[in-house]
């Protein structure tokens, strides 16, 4: 005897239920009966993703791309493979508009759904608000390319995974790239770098690391804040013009990015000496800037473009079946879409790895956490997944939740991004003690006893 799952989950799109009067009548009959326990056929095994997406509001362009790519990949696995070892992937979307309170509201609504694999809110604010909650639920929280840097330390943050790139690694990667342009790390001595950052906790997160790297390599750094949302930057760029830096690092978000590029042009700063961070690297950041963005370089963990086999499969299998998630097909292969696809690959592979240990069945959140902590995709495996060149590799362990992701740099040619560097490694050895110190402080503040490797090997069912 099972209960029919509640029918009117408020986050489900109502359109699909209420197509016609007949549907309404049928729905009404079902609604009357839904509280009555009845015999139902055994449900196929499923693994569920609660998606706190944002498809309207100021950041909808990023949200539609990322969640579109994520859903496209989940659909590919379902259509092509019938799920992960027969376990169907399911999901629901709940609109957050990128607002923290709505994100938490979505969490409260969606958390009661059985078989949750992992949370993927793609929002620093929402992720921060969920850290304590998901630790209690024992369900992974994925913050690909963003989130708390110290959550890299899996001893203190067992359920948080800033996969591929945390903010400190991004900083190191950018400095290593600039060093490469100048002829080596020793050539940074005496150079001047300005960091133009978004006036928010996200923007300020890397301030101490730029200071640290400036001391280590002998360059001077000047960090200038742009107040949110960043739609006016005349004063900041005039200050930059006066300082005459060798490079400007753009640590922006949303409208701040095109305005920075346009104001740089207006104040005569060369665009090819501006290096964007990972949230300043999308088409949405450069297209509004028009010709001012031509030559701009930005860091990324995943290449853009649709030439990769996994993208081709998605186009053929998912979009061919009319199940593609992007309304505008021209966005297939864009930065956010590809980030969503890579995020899909990492989530699905974590489930697959965990299934090999715990069985080909629906897993608990804690079992999926174990899967993430053994997410080792070398270049061979990445190629087998059809993603060679799309991203490099990942090597997550129980205490390193970032997974040593490599970065590359892309340059906007006025129409598309072109990769202009090899895959670059951040200076993990330098950053790790700082991360551990910060995580230890968090643990002390919150009364957390750090896990051991043995603790991490067990997973509750």
């Amino acid at each position, binding site marked *: 005897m099972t209960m029919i799952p509640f029918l009117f989950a408020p986050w489900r799109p109502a359109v699909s239920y209420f197509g016609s009067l007949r549907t309404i009548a049928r729905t009404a009959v079902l609604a009357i009966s839904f509280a009555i326990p009845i015999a139902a056929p055994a449900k196929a095994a499923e693994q569920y993703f609660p998606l706190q997406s944002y*498809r*309207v*509001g*100021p*950041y*909808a*362009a990023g*949200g*539609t791309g990322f969640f579109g790519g994520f859903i496209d990949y989940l659909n590919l696995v379902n259509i092509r493979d019938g799920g992960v070892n027969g376990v169907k992937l399911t999901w629901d979307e709940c609109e957050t508009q990128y607002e923290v309170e709505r994100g938490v509201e979505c969490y409260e609504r969606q958390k009661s759904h059985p078989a949750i694999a992992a949370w993927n809110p793609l929002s620093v604010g929402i992720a921060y608000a969920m850290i304590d909650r998901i630790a209690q639920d024992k369900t992974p929280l994925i913050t690909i390319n963003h989130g708390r840097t110290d959550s890299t330390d899996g001893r203190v943050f067992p359920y948080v995974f800033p996969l591929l790139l945390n903010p400190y690694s991004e900083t190191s990667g950018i400095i290593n790239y600039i060093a490469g342009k100048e002829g080596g790390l020793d050539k940074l001595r005496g150079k001047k770098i300005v960091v133009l950052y978004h*006036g928010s906790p996200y923007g300020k997160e890397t301030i101490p690391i730029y200071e640290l790297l400036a001391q280590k390599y002998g360059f001077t750094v000047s960090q*200038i*804040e*742009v*107040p*949110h*949302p960043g*739609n*006016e930057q*005349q*004063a*900041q760029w*005039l*200050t930059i*013009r*006066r300082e005459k830096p060798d490079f400007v690092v753009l640590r922006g978000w*949303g*409208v701040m990015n*095109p*305005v920075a590029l*346009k104001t740089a*042009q*207006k*104040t*005569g700063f060369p665009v090819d000496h501006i290096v964007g961070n990972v949230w300043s690297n999308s088409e*949405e950041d450069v*297209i*509004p*800037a*028009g010709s*001012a963005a031509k030559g701009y370089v930005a860091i990324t963990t995943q290449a853009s473009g649709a030439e990769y086999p996994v993208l081709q499969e998605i186009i053929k299998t998912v979009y061919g079946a009319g199940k593609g998630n992007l*309304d*505008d097909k021209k*966005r297939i292969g864009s930065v956010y879409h590809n980030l969503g696809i890579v995020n899909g690959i990492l989530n699905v592979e974590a489930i697959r790895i965990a299934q090999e240990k715990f069985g080909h069945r629906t897993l608990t959140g804690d079992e999926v956490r174990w899967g993430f902590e053994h997410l080792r995709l070398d270049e061979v495996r990445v190629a087998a997944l059809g993603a060679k060149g799309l991203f490099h590799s990942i090597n997550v362990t129980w205490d390193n939740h970032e997974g040593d992701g490599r970065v590359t740099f892309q340059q906007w040619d006025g129409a598309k991004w072109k990769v202009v560097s090899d895959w670059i490694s951040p200076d993990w050895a330098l950053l790790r003690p700082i991360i551990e110190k910060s995580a230890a402080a968090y643990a002390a503040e919150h009364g957390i006893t750090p896990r051991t490797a043995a603790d991490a090997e067990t997973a509750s069912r």
Partner: protein
Amino acid sequence: MLDFDYSFLAEVLVGGLLSGVMYSLVAIGFVLIYKTSGVLNFAQGAMLLFAALTFVSLVERGAPFALALLITFAIMVALGMAIERVVLRPLVNKPPITLFMATLGLSYVIEGAAQLAWGTQVHGLDLGIDDTPFEVAGILISKFDLFAAAVAATMVAFLTAFFRYTRIGLAFRAVADDQFAAFAVGLKLPRIWATVWAAAGAVALVAGLLWGARLGVQFSLSLVVLKALPVLVLGGFDSILGAIVAGLLIGATEKLAEVYIGPFFGGGIESWFAYLVALAFLLVRPAGLFGQKIVERA
């Protein structure tokens, strides 16, 4: 003080003044509505977004520039009139806070409708005016900023002439002075309000295109109202000249503050500094620089 860089000071000042012109463009839309109906139209930013998004979407669908402009103009006029007819006319004689809340709600409806109709993608907007700088006495000046200043000057000249020399303009002024007296002498208030809302729609189109060319056409366009609010407080809610002068003052003050005072506070002060100036001014002169001082008998 020997080392003080005066040419840099001049550059910051000129840049601030030109930025201020862009704020004034948004503020004028508020003034038009407030002047004639006493409503602080919080939906002006959403109207600006709607105008720019409609225009750029039409252009991207193959409409020639002039045709897209004409169609968008017609849509904005229709939108302005529809707002007056459907939302505000039924609320006539209600307290100002009710009308303000209605426009606040309206801003969300328009933002949602704009995204529903035209999608959520970010668009570039090229008006054919280069945003590259040229140098005058060591100071860089943007061609686009000068173009925006010229547009603002033309708009102010046009509106001033309209209010002073046309029959309907005089009717606007009569309504602005005293709605009840204007009604008593036979002026048709609903028609005047509809016309002024249509005019505000047209102003939103101009401001939307200029801001859209600067920021890209995206949701954040609706946030430019936040730049206009201190301008309105400083200049007075019912003075077009006030909107221009206050825009220049706010633009210059916030840029100078950011560059010269900002470093003492860790930077990023310009957004709240503009409000600080407006607030301080409010305490001294509540009606703003050019706002009408209302004297009421007890």
